[in-house]
């Protein structure tokens, strides 16, 4: 059964149909929240909130890209969590620890990293931690755009729909986010792939 039909049934109260859609989208939704919030537990809560909210507001979905519609709800759930944190800024360092060390990578990624051997695995974990650290340092609105466009590979239009802003805003925020990330990652030079390092060193 295709997604549109499942969503139609879900709109008429079929929870099983909606849960089939949840299963198809939950990994992406969780990873968006994870990279935006930098915290696995908060990301899981935000993802769950987003799916509950999506089910309750399913009638406001009127066709089009369900993924973009859902990403908007996930984005809003992340903004809610970020606002909560600002009111109560007691985030511990453990909460910002790298995700790959306690979280499980997807099967292919896991196989790939295991094939690299223990040293490469650890290096890779550090690189992921460095990227997440640089993402965390971005302003919220830049980080969300960077996660959607670059981490998730969403198109500009989808990102615009998800954050509820015009295309021009997406373009400019993404450019600034990339520039800041580049400057931040430069400080973790030894972790970066050779190509990245070389490019950074050529002009100097």
């Amino acid at each position, binding site marked *: 059964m295709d997604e549109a039909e499942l969503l139609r049934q879900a709109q008429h109260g079929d*929870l099983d149909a*909606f*849960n089939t859609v*949840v*299963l198809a989208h*939950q*990994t*992406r*939704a*969780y*990873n968006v929240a*994870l*990279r935006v919030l930098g915290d*696995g537990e908060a990301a*899981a809560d935000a*993802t*769950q909130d987003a*799916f*509950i909210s999506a*089910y*309750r507001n399913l009638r406001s979905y009127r066709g089009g890209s369900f993924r973009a519609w859902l990403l908007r709800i996930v984005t809003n759930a992340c903004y809610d969590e970020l606002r909560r944190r600002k009111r109560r800024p007691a985030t511990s360092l453990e909460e910002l620890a790298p*995700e*790959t060390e306690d*979280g*499980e*990578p*997807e099967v292919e*990624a896991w196989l790939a990293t295991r094939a690299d051997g223990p040293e490469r695995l650890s290096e890779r974990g550090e690189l*992921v931690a460095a*990227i*997440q650290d640089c993402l965390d340092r971005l302003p919220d609105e830049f980080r969300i755009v*960077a*996660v959607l*466009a*670059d*981490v998730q*590979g969403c198109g*500009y239009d989808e990102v615009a729909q998800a954050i509820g802003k015009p295309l021009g805003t997406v*373009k*400019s925020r*993404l*450019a*600034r986010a*990339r*520039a*800041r*990330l*580049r*400057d931040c*990652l*430069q400080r973790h030079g030894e972790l*970066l*792939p050779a*190509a*990245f390092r070389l*490019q*950074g060193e*050529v*002009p*100097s």
Partner: protein
Amino acid sequence: MTRLNRLPPRDLEALSAYADGRLSPAERQALDARLGSDTELRAALDQIRATASLLRALPSIRPPRSFVLSPEMAGVRRRGLGYPALQLATAMATLGFIVTLGVDLFSFSVAPSALRAAAPAEEMALEAPAAQALPPSDAAGAAVPEAGAAMEAVSTPEPGAQAQMDALQATLPPAPTATAPLAPTESADRAAPALEAGSLTAAPTAEGASPPPTVESGAMTAPACEACGGEQPLPPETQSEKTAGEQATPSAEASIESSAALGVEGETVTPEAYALQAPPPLEPAPELPPAGLPWLRWVEIALASTAILLAGLTIWARAKSQ
């Protein structure tokens, strides 16, 4: 080393969009020309591409749990409405039980004085037989809440009904007397004076018998409200009284009609109200009170078990919602 942040914002945006293939053909051509000559711009483009590909290479993490919705998650709102409704129902059932119990206990303690109050009224006027004659038919209507049953009770040559007919034929003012026995036992003291007033005033003017009925309905109001916590049972009774008062013609058909109306109305009356009507512990019908009181017991048992069941459901609903 190139600092991307030092690039003019316009160039940065153009390079970023160029990397994603989002420039218009004209913009793209213009930037291509500049990239051919400007090595720093080309280095900046490479850095943007490298940064984007680094982010894209972040591993996808498997969620720690499934986010499939349980019915509880999906239906919180519906249960949110059900819980207050359960609370209200529990409170109503408990209140009903307490009131019924109170009426039951009260009727026991008041019964003797009601008998004493009824006795002088009986002696005073000719209508007294009618006053006592109606309870049987009324009680029959309550016990078997069908108009037919009430009619039968009146038309069959029962001693009570016969007495009523006689009384109706003999005396003009049946309206106030007909309503007098309807008043529950605790208002018997107030009903007695009303009987007096009726026997005095209603005799000359049958149509003018409205003041006593209003007194009656006033006496009725308090117990009816107590019993049911609502005003539903009240209108039928007061209305039937009024119709009885308006049709105060000295004919037996009128009384049959009015008692039939009482029987019909009796269908809509709640069990508590039946219980109230049922036990008129007046002398001429001594066999009826024992038949009426167990009714009250049954109502008490039913209300108590309903209240306990609802309370259990309410607690369960609250535990589930947390």
